[in-house]
C-alpha cells in the first residue's frame, strides 16, 4: 500500500491474531476525532486444518464489514486500500500472539545485572522468557547446556559485561550456547537467531564461537556501563527477527506481512507500547495488567528521581491465569490466602476438585454467585502474586555504586530498590476476561484495589474489549489516533480509589473529606479505620469521567499524598463505579478472627454493592 500523509488517514483497520481468537476493529475519523466504530472477531486459523492466519483475519474483518456496512475485502480476498467512499481502509495494521507468541531465552553474565537487563529487553519487546542463563545462576555448566538444548526458543538474546570490561565470562556463555547447539522452535530449515548485545570487545570472539552454528546478529551493548541500560537496539532487533524468522515460519504470515502498513508486533509488545505512549503523553505513572487464561502480564511506567523520566517495565507471570493456570494460582497462593476473600465457608476437597475441573475444561463460566465469588477470590490472588513479581523486577539498576549523603543513608534506598511507588501511581488499568467482563464494574474495581493495594489517590480503569494491542501498533503509525481511541473508547473509567496510608495505634478517624461534586452537592465526613465508602461520581456526556474538587485532611501519622498529617486539595475523577474511600488501612490486613473477617468482608461488599445480599445467605 502506498504511504499516506498522516492527516489523510480517515479509516483504520486493525487486527490482533490471538492464540484462539482474531479480533478486528475499525476506527474512523469523524468531526476531527478518531473513534472506534465496530469490532468483529473470528477463531484464529493458524493451526490445522486451516493453517493460514489470513483466513481468520478475513473472517474477523468480514464481521466488521457486516456490522458497519463498509466493504473492506475485495473479490480476491484481499483488504481494499486506500479508502474511497464507503469502501476500503486507509491503513491496515496487526499484532500477533498466535502459535505461542514470541518465546525467547536470554543469557548474561551476572544474574542480577546484565542477565536481568537482557530479560528486561526481551520482556519489553513482548516476549515470553523461557529461561535466564547466567554465569552465577547456581547451575553447573553441563546443566545449563542441557537446559539450553532442551528448550527450543524462537531466538536467544545474549549479553554480558560492560563495554571494555572483562571478556572471559561472556565468551564462556557463548561457548555453552555453542555446545548446546540449540534448534529453533518452528521449522528446521533455518539457523536459530541469536542477538549479541554484550561487551563490544568480546563481539569478535563471540562471533568466532557462534557464527558457524547460528544466525548471529550483533547490536550495541544493552548495558554499556553499569549505571545505564540501552535496551532499544536489542528490542528493535528482536522485533526485526520476530518478523523475519518467527512470523515468516507461521502459516499464512508471509501474506499477512505484505498486507500490513506497519510491521506486525507481538501482542504484549504492542500493549506495552500503548501504555508507555499514554504515560509519556500525559506525563503520568501507570500500571497496566492483563490477566489471561494462562498468564498474567503486568506493565508499568514510573518516574523516579527529579528528572521524572519514565521507566517502562513489563513482567509475565507465566503460570498465573484464570483457566489453564488456575490450579497453579491455587497452589502458589495456598488455600487460606484464596479463601480469605470469600465471605462464607467452603469445603476444601470440593474446592480443589472445582479448581482442577476449571483447569481441564477452561472455557466454562461461573453460573452461580458462589462460583463467581470464588473465581474473583482466585483472581485477586493471581493479580497479587503477579504484582509482587513485577515489583521485584521493576527496580533501579542493580550493582550500581551510589554516592550517598548522610541524608540518603537514613532513607534506606538501595541499589535494586523497586521503582513501583503506589503513592505516586496515577492510574491502574486492568484487562483480561475476569476484569473486563465482570458482571458488575464495582467487582473489577474491588478486585484491583484488593490485589494491587493502591495508596493515596489512584484512578482505576478497565480495557472494555481488549483493544490495547491494536492501539499499541497504531501508536507507531498515528499516536494521536491511538490516544484518542484509548481514552474515549478503549478505557472504561471506573473511578478513583482514595486510600490513606499509615498506621493508627487504635481504631479511629483516618481523615476528614469534603468532595464538591459537579452539580454543587457536597459529600463530606470522616473516614474511620476499617471503613469502605462509595461516593457516586459518573461519566459526562462525552463518555469521559466527571471531575470533583476534593479536600482530604488526614490525622497525624496518616498520609494521603501530601505528607503525614498534611491536607491535600485536588481534583478527582469519577467513573462507572465512582469514588472509593478506602479506609481499610495501608498496609491492608484482613482481620485474623474468622467471624470478624467474614463480617467485615460482607460490610465492605455491601458498601460497594459488589454482590447482592442474598449471596451471603448461604451457610
Amino acid at each position, binding site marked *: 500500500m502506498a504511504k499516506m500523509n498522516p492527516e489523510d488517514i480517515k479509516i483504520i483497520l486493525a487486527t490482533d491474531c490471538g*492464540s484462539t481468537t482474531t479480533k478486528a476493529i475499525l476506527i474512523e475519523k469523524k468531526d476531527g476525532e478518531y473513534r472506534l466504530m465496530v469490532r468483529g*472477531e*473470528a*477463531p484464529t486459523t493458524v*493451526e490445522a486444518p486451516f493453517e493460514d492466519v489470513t483466513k481468520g483475519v478475513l473472517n474477523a474483518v468480514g464481521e466488521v464489514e457486516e456490522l458497519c456496512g463498509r466493504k473492506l475485502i475485495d473479490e480476491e480476498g484481499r483488504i481494499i486500500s486506500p479508502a474511497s467512499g464507503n469502501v476500503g481502509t486507509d491503513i491496515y495494521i496487526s499484532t500477533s500472539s498466535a*502459535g*505461542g507468541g514470541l518465546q525467547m531465552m536470554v543469557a548474561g553474565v551476572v544474574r542480577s545485572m546484565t542477565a536481568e537487563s537482557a530479560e528486561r529487553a526481551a520482556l519489553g519487546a513482548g516476549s515470553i522468557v523461557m529461561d535466564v542463563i547466567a554465569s552465577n545462576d547456581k547451575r553447573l*555448566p*553441563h546443566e545449563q*547446556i*542441557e537446559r539450553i538444548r532442551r528448550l527450543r526458543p524462537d531466538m536467544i538474546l545474549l549479553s554480558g559485561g560492560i563495554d571494555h570490561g572483562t*571478556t*572471559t*565470562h561472556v*565468551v*564462556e556463555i557463548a*561457548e*555453552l550456547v*555453542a*555446545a*548446546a*547447539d540449540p534448534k529453533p522452535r518452528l521449522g528446521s530449515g533455518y539457523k536459530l537467531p541469536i542477538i549479541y548485545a554484550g561487551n563490544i570487545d568480546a563481539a569478535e*570472539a563471540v562471533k568466532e*564461537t557462534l557464527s558457524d552454528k547460528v544466525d548471529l546478529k550483533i547490536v550495541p551493548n544493552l548495558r554499556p556501563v553499569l549505571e545505564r541500560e540501552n535496551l532499544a537496539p536489542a528490542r528493535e532487533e528482536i522485533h526485526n527477527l520476530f518478523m523475519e524468522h518467527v512470523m515468516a515460519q507461521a502459516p499464512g504470515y508471509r501474506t499477512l506481512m505484505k498486507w500490513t502498513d506497519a510491521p506486525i508486533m507481538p501482542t504484549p509488545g504492542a500493549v506495552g507500547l500503548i501504555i508507555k505512549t499514554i504515560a509519556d503523553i500525559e506525563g503520568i505513572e501507570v500500571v497496566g495488567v492483563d490477566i489471561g487464561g*494462562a498468564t498474567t502480564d503486568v506493565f508499568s511506567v514510573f518516574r523516579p528521581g527529579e528528572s521524572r523520566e519514565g521507566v517502562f517495565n513489563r513482567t509475565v507471570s507465566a*503460570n498465573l491465569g484464570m483457566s*489453564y*493456570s488456575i*490450579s*497453579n494460582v*491455587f*497452589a*502458589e497462593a495456598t488455600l487460606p490466602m484464596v479463601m480469605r476473600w470469600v465471605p462464607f465457608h467452603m469445603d*476444601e*476437597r*470440593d474446592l*480443589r*476438585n*472445582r*479448581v*482442577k*475441573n*476449571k*483447569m*481441564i*475444561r*477452561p*472455557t*466454562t*463460566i*461461573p*453460573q*452461580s*454467585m*458462589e*462460583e*463467581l465469588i470464588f473465581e474473583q477470590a482466585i483472581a485477586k490472588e493471581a493479580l497479587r502474586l503477579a504484582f509482587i513479581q513485577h515489583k521485584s523486577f521493576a527496580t533501579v539498576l542493580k550493582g550500581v555504586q551510589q554516592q550517598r549523603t548522610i541524608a540518603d543513608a537514613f532513607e534506606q534506598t538501595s541499589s535494586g530498590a523497586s521503582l513501583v511507588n503506589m503513592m505516586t501511581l496515577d492510574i491502574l488499568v486492568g484487562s483480561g476476561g475476569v476484569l473486563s*467482563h465482570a*458482571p*458488575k464494574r464495582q467487582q473489577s474495581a474491588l478486585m484491583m484495589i484488593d490485589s494491587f493495594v493502591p495508596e493515596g489517590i489512584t484512578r482505576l480503569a478497565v480495557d472494555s474489549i481488549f483493544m490495547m494491542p491494536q492501539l499499541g501498533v497504531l501508536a507507531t503509525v498515528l499516536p494521536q489516533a491511538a490516544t484518542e481511541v484509548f481514552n474515549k473508547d478503549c478505557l472504561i473509567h471506573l473511578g478513583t480509589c482514595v486510600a490513606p496510608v499509615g498506621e493508627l495505634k487504635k481504631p479511629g478517624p483516618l481523615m476528614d473529606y469534603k468532595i464538591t461534586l459537579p452539580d454543587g452537592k457536597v459529600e463530606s465526613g470522616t473516614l474511620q479505620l476499617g471503613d469502605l465508602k462509595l461516593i457516586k461520581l459518573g461519566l459526562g456526556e462525552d463518555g469521559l469521567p466527571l471531575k470533583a474538587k476534593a479536600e482530604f485532611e488526614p490525622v497525624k501519622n496518616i498520609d494521603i499524598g501530601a505528607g503525614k498529617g498534611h491536607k491535600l486539595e485536588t481534583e478527582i475523577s469519577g467513573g462507572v463505579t465512582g469514588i472509593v474511600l478506602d479506609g481499610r488501612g495501608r498496609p491492608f490486613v484482613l482481620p485474623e478472627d474468622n467471624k470478624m473477617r467474614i463480617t467485615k468482608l460482607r460490610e465492605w461488599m455491601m458498601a460497594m454493592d459488589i454482590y447482592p445480599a442474598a449471596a451471603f445467605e448461604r451457610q
Partner: protein
Amino acid sequence: MGHAYTPGLKVTDKLLVTKNRILPLKGNVIVKKGDKVSPDDVVAQTHLPGKVDPVNIANKLGIPPEDMDEVMLKKKGDSIEVGEILAKTKGFLGLSFLSQSEKSHVSGSVESVSNITGQVLLRGQPIPVEVKAYVTGEVTEVFEKEGVAISTWSSFVQGIFGIGGETHGEIKVVVENNASVLTDKEISDDCKGKVIVGGSMVTADAIKKAAKVGAAGIVVGGFDDKDLRDFLGYDIGVAITGSEEIGVTLVVTEGFGQINMAGTTFELLKSKEGKLACINGATQIRAGVIRPEVIIPFDRDINDKDDVDDFREMGLQTGSPVRVIRHPYFGMLGKVVSLPPELAELESGSRARVLEVEFDDGKKAIVPRANVEMLES
C-alpha cells in the same frame, strides 16, 4: 464465532486411528510401509549427541588461557576415554614431577578448546533413542529419517485428564458398574500387566496397589484432586502431564471428584474385556490440545472406508444428550430441551448464551452453553 459449548470427548467403537511415531532427531527408520507392527516393536532409532562436560583447564592447571595450546594433549575432535590425560603442564623448570595434569571424566570426544576462556568442552558418548510402535497396526507412511505413521482400526476413548505415559495391556473390568468406586480391594495380583477399568472414582490406595502389583494402567471416571496431590507428592499447577514416573498410567474420563463414567464409555470398555488396550495419560490443555486416550485395536483392513459420523460436528441441537461440566449441576446428565438464541442473565449476573436441559430425573434447568459438553447419543 465458533460453537459456544465444549465439544464432547470422543468415544467410539470404530475409528481409524493414525499415530505418528517421530524421532526427536533425525535417525533411521527400521520398518517399511505395509509392515504389521506390535506395540513393543521398535520402528525408528537414533543417537542423541552425548552430554557435554565443560572443564576449565586453564583454571585447573593455573595457566593463562592463551597458553592452552601448549598444555593440551588432546585436540578438538580427538576421542577420549575416562581417565585419559587431557592436558599437562611442562612443570617447574621443565621437571616433569612438578608438572600438573587434568584427566577426562567422560568417554567421548573433545568438542572445543578455547584460548579465551581456557574452557574445554568434552562430549560424552551418543545416547541411543528408540521409538516404539505403541499400537498394533500397519505402517502406512514412512517419513524418511524421521519416523512413521501407524494406522489401525480401533475402538477409541478420549479421556479428560491423565498422568503417566504410553503403555498397553489387556482390559480387565474390576467393578460392577459405572458408578462403583475402585478401591484397593478390587485389585489383586492377577491385575499385573492389565489395564484396569473402574467406575465413578479411584482411590489413592487403589492406585498405589495397582502400581505395586504391576498393572499397566487404570481407566476411571473421576479422581479426587487431594488424592492426586498425596499420590504425586506435589500439586499439578498446569495441565501438562505424561512424563510422571509413577509405575502406572491413569486415564480419567470425566473429571475431578466422584463422577460416574459415561454409560457408553463403560459399556464399550466392558465389551472389550480381555482385548489389548494401548493407553497414554499425556495431557496438555494449552495450545495444541492433547487428551489422554485408550486405543483398543482390532483386525480390519485399514483401506476399508466407513462413514464414521463425528457427533461433535453436528453442534448442539434440541434432544442432544449433554453433561453439565460446572457447578451447580456438575456431572449431571440430560437432554437439551431448548436453545434460546438471546443472551440470558445468570445467577452470577453474567450474561451468556444458555440452553435449557432436562436431567435424567425429569428436573429442568437453565445452563450456560459454555458449561455443557455433548455426549454421543
